């Protein structure tokens, strides 16, 4: 039985107040591109829909000294067209360019994309590789959640029911500025990824100083390819090294069979995409 109510909020303070009051009944709605199918398929029935679409104060992309700050209400269209994102987080820009279709990108927001925590969320994979930090706020205070601790499972995050994402921080560093994103879908538009990979490497005198590799759609949450990363660091960055280490990605992932692809196929293709992403990021 559908039992929804609707509250419009005009500013962050109001939003935190309503979240505090409604607790588990809260369902934040911004672009609505995930929430509406959930309502249609009765995945949610008894919620207070809190409209934050007009919270312009949370729609920004700012450059600070050592990081960039992205407001949760930033649309995918904004990400696609930001010079700051292009310069410091190209993986995120490339993910935005592959995201659904241009009309959906006008509505969908980065905050909604990660809060929904789909294993295939297109912005989640790059944010994981970029070592982003999610700033969450509630009436009782502010806390910073490293993105590695943010995704807990399919549609599950570390956010409490009264918390609102207020900023997504991305550190400025060479690995992030070199980052790239590759998505394999069954077609180019409106495709949910079969496998997605984001990678960023920083080289020092030809050797790997830092290597960040993340994958989507290969586990219940987006995952870091820790085995691959460990095998790269400190070594001379050559096509041969990339070829060998990319294969190790099967240690880091646990893909399932679903309507889009088999787990076996995902494992094979993940290694190929990791290889391509590393080569692209390290420019070899």
């Amino acid at each position, binding site marked *: 039985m559908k039992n*929804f109510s609707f509250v419009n909020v005009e500013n962050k303070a109001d939003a935190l107040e309503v979240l505090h009051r409604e607790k588990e009944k809260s369902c934040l709605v911004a672009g609505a591109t995930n929430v*509406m199918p959930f309502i249609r398929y009765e995945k949610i029935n008894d919620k207070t829909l809190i409209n934050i*679409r007009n919270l312009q104060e949370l729609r920004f992309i700012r450059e600070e000294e050592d990081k960039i700050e992205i407001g949760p209400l930033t649309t995918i269209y904004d990400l696609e067209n930001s010079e700051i994102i292009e310069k410091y987080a190209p993986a995120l820009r490339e993910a935005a360019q592959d995201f659904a*279709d*241009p009309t*959906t990108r*006008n509505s969908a927001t980065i905050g909604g994309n990660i809060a929904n925590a789909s294993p295939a969320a297109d912005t989640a994979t790059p944010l994981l590789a970029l070592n982003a930090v999610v700033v969450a706020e509630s009436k009782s205070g502010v806390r910073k959640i490293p993105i590695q601790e943010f995704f807990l499972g399919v549609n599950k995050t570390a956010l409490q029911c009264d918390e609102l994402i207020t900023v997504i921080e991305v550190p400025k560093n060479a690995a992030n500025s070199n980052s790239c994103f590759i998505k394999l879908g069954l077609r180019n538009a*409106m495709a949910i990824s079969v496998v997605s990979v984001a990678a960023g490497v920083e080289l020092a005198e030809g050797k790997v100083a830092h290597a960040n590799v993340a994958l989507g759609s290969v586990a219940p949450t987006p995952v870091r390819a820790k085995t691959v990363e460990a095998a790269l660091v400190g070594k001379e960055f050559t096509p041969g090294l990339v070829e060998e280490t990319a294969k190790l990605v099967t240690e880091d992932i646990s893909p399932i069979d679903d309507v889009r692809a088999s787990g076996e196929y995902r494992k094979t293709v993940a290694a190929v995409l990791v290889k391509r992403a590393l080569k692209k990021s390290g420019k070899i």
Partner: protein
Amino acid sequence: MSEINITVTVNGTKINANVKPEMNLLKFLRSQGFYDVKCGCEMGDCGTCTVIFNGSSVKSCITLAAQADGGTVWTNKGLGEVDELTQKLQKAFVEHGSIQCGFCTPGMIIAGKAYIEKGGKPDRNEIKKAISGNLCRCTGYKKIVDAIYDVAEQMSK
């Protein structure tokens, strides 16, 4: 469960109505007689319900009606009466035979308009990307791309 009262300016006319909290903008528009906004998949995949909401193209089936309170909506039919670019696109769709059953046409025209307004050039690949969220099951897309290309070319001169 209580209904909420919203006021939305649709095609230049203020409309006041009570809606359920979970109603989508598409159902609201059709309930008010704007039948040129088509209901296809109702899950954001097919694009035929695309409208201009507060200046951006959006899929009205995945927008809450209540979110449109105080806002402005333009549909393909309404734009066709006042907007020169939409008129050009509508004319080009007829001339190029881009309409067979016509069900996808309102969304295609708005996607084409959004593309050209953002500075889109006459470039077939870019046009295909611009309409990638709009499905057509009749034409094979070629004639739709032809029509948008034609108008993009006219506008870039």
